């Protein structure tokens, strides 16, 4: 039996399904592209951050007098009372007081790198 208008209903149902699929896939593509761009930005920032720390360490190993405040991202931290090393043989100690510095990437968890330097 042929019902008038059945083709129109089928076409509309097909278009509806296709539109839903289209919107879903387009959304996933947009989300993916956003993620890719964001990741690229974060990766670049992390690399610059690591370079800043490495640059500081190399300069310090060579120059001995570089301050971490020369490097980007560094922050001086308050350290607990045990802010010194006592190296010795039991009867004689050399006390080395130190400051603790922190390199940190803003808005990135677990990105802290700490260095210590003689006071």
């Amino acid at each position, binding site marked *: 039996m042929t019902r008038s208008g059945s083709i129109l209903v089928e076409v509309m149902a097909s278009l509806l399904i296709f539109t839903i*699929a*289209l919107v879903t*896939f387009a959304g*996933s593509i947009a989300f993916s592209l956003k993620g890719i761009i964001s990741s690229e930005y*974060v*990766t670049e920032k992390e690399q610059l951050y690591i370079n800043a720390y490495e640059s500081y360490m190399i300069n310090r190993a060579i120059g001995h007098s570089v301050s971490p405040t020369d490097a980007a991202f560094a922050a001086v931290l308050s350290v607990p009372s045990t802010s010194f090393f*006592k*190296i010795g043989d039991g009867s004689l100690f050399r006390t080395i007081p130190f400051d603790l510095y922190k390199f940190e990437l803003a808005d990135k968890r677990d990105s802290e790198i*700490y260095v210590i330097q003689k006071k």
Partner: protein
Amino acid sequence: MKTLFAYFTAKRRGAALFITILIGSLLLLIISAVAVRAVLNTSNIEAWQTQGIKARRLDALARSAANMTAEVINSDGKLDGFGSPENVKAGVSSDPTLIITDPEKTYLTLKLKGVSSCDYTVTSIASSDKDLVVLTLSCVLSGDKRSLTWGKNR
């Protein structure tokens, strides 16, 4: 199989639209899969780099501590302050010192062994609950120049 083939080749109303929608959906699915795959790959790289920073945390503390000890020895110009010459030659060390508590408790221990300010080895041990880094800094006199060698064991 024959029935299936006949189904797709039969001339029926709406078949062209159906096939068009099917192929369009498949294309979109493939493009989406490629995009999602790219996101997963970039996320993996990001996670790997963050993991590298975590591993670097202990390295940084150990390196800076060893370097600090070398700076002190360099400015002192002698090893006398660290103990008697016999004991320093045999090796002296510090107690494990708590350096940071966040994101995890990390301790540093410094060891020194040597005979003069131009001939010594500093061992710096940075340890947390999960990891341990042992770093050595050796200084030897070659000619009239001091040579520093860094080494690392995990």
